């Protein structure tokens, strides 16, 4: 099995999907011959032609609106939004149109063939407008699915599932680890199920839940805690909408403690949703308050990026505080 990075895994998934199904069309800003600003669509135009992989004008609402129509017609549209920070002009098309397309028509029409790929997250000195994690906005919208991989293997398998899923999917790619994260990824066509979390390492004292690039911080904090004799169970949510509450609840029932960590600001962040559900389900098992380790409630900063981000040290301190509560 070849060892490739997360970005190459995304490219491999797109290549696999386009090769397997001639209805798959990729579109977005600079994704044609240039291959995208991160090169996620590298060589796809050369291989599948300009009709199936093409540049669009700079109009996020246009890209998503166009892709909804394309999907409704029967094609499989894979749209790239260059940075998640720039997805907001398309917010209406995503929230009012894509998410409600099947419901409002009584299932006469759907745009399930739509997948929106977009790089998200901080850690690249991107400041306010190249760093945001806007997943929670979309998790508040019934009709959408929200998927975030953290490894190269997941990126390919989850993206292939997202593209073939019968509902519209937003696929957030952790750009900070596009190249840093590498692993064994099959050349073959494979899918990983949406809505299923992965218990990455088992433990007994406390459960750590995260997604995307944040998983690396959780793993590192868990290793530090292990040296102090604390056993962490680490869960990668993979899909945020619909999220796998069963797996998290099962783990918290066992450990009695939960820390949720995400880069996005705390207030209204998705950790709040997980915390609420888990206290409903595991109230009698909890040994300490559920803790959120997140970004601050500020715009994403530039020079204070390191201080803003919920890194492994913040998670490590939270683990100790929870265990010694």
């Amino acid at each position, binding site marked *: 099995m070849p060892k490739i990075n997360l970005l190459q895994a995304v490219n491999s998934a797109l290549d696999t999907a386009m090769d397997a199904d001639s209805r798959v069309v990729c579109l977005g800003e600079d994704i044609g011959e240039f291959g995208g600003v991160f090169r996620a669509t590298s060589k796809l135009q050369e291989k599948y032609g300009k009709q199936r992989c093409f540049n669009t004008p700079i109009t996020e609402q246009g890209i998503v609106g166009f892709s909804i*129509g*394309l999907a409704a*017609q029967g094609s499989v549209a894979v749209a790239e939004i260059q940075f998640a920070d720039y997805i907001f002009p398309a917010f209406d098309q995503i929230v009012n*149109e894509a998410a409600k397309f099947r*419901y409002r028509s009584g299932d006469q029409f759907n745009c399930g063939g739509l997948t929106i790929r977009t790089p998200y997250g901080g850690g690249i000195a991107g400041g306010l407008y190249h760093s945001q994690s806007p997943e929670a906005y979309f998790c508040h919208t019934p009709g959408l699915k929200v998927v975030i991989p953290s490894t190269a293997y997941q990126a390919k398998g989850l993206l292939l599932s997202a593209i073939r899923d019968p*509902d519209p999917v937003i696929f957030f790619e952790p750009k900070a680890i596009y190249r840093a994260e590498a692993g064994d990824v099959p050349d073959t066509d494979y899918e990983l199920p949406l809505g299923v979390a992965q218990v990455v390492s088992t433990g007994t004292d406390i459960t750590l839940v995260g997604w995307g690039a944040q998983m690396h911080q959780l793993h590192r904090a868990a290793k530090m805690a292990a040296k102090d004799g604390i056993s962490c169970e680490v869960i990668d949510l993979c899909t945020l909408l619909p999220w796998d509450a069963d797996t998290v609840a099962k783990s918290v029932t066992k450990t009695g403690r939960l820390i949720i960590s995400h880069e996005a600001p705390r207030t209204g962040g998705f950790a709040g949703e997980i915390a609420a559900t888990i206290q409903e389900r595991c109230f009698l098992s909890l040994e300490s308050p559920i803790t959120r380790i997140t970004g601050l409630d500020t715009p994403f900063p530039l020079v204070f990026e390191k201080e803003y981000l919920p890194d492994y040290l913040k998670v490590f301190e939270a683990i100790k505080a929870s265990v010694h509560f």
Partner: protein
Amino acid sequence: MVDKNLVTSVLKFTEAKDMPISTLSLLNADGEILEGAQEPKIDKHTALKIYRDMNYIRVLDERMIGAQRQGRLSFYVTCTGEEASVVGSVAAFSSQDMVMSQYREHAALRYRGFTSKQFMNQLLSNDLDLGKGRQMPIHYGSRDLNYMTISSTLATQIPQAAGYAYGQKLSGNDTCTICYFGEGAASEGDFHAGLNIAAVSKCPVVFVVRNNGYAISTPTVEQFVGDGIAPRGVGYGIPAIRVDGNDILAVHAASVEARNLAIEKSTPVIVETMSYRLGAHSTSDDPTSYRTSEEEEMWRQKDPIERMKKWLLGKGWWSDQQDHQMKDEYKKEILGALKSQEKRQPPVLDHLISDVYQIPPAHLREQYSELLAHIDKYPDHYLPNPTKGHDSYHKPAAQFS
């Protein structure tokens, strides 16, 4: 890139008046072909279908406004005054072409074959509503008739129509998309996004913009300063034409050519129909507060249906007697359908959660179970017809498990 032939040493700004767009007009107010104009080819069958459907919608609109006033409908929107803009354009298209409309174009849906009962099922949100009771009245849609379900959000259908048409081009079946919206919607970002992306991607889509004078209460002079909407098409590199929207022959002839262009050249086309919204914006609106009765009367004199009738009478294709008979029949049919369809039950409660996703996910099924358990405690409060019991309302959620 600069065109070398257009380099000048004269400092001069270009204004809208330097690039005027004229209005295609073929029929005069008396239903006669204008001097110097050529009567476009249109067969008797098509002409009569257009005329009958325009009348059908006029009668439907009158009756449904009445039904809304009686409290039988919650809301309604009419097409009154703009029937020629809508029916004249859709009649130029194949039934395989997709219609993506705004919300004032139900005359196009009628042209495609939507029945009185189907209109009523949607307006009344009953168990036969194709949209399963989810949207306010007038948000029609029909997969069978290639009529995309309407959403209240303005202009969102414009970039979607471009994408739909691109898919049609890829499938190579010589179909296209006709996309309707009003001059007010053309101020939305999606209009500009949609036209530009349609032009760049060479999508076979015909945009029909109904310039009807008002966006709710806002007159066009407060909506834009430029010369209407058609020149914007030119700005995006899209062939554009402006027509008298109350002149059925002009609308139809322009639409026939627009469709030909769209398919043969694989290009978007824009048709601006100049007309007037004779009725209120909706049943929630009162136009007397923002326009004069003189203005309305002036437009009433230009009624597109009357004008077409005169043309048909002149050709000997129609008679006053047929006219009366037709209107009576429509009135009877529509009121009969209203009466029969309002007796029907609402959709089953399962449709609260079906179709959010193709298969309802676990968390939604769980929420639904909680709701059913709650309804069981207070059936009189929730069930639309408690005497008929739960069966008339909801079934167990077995289909989802």
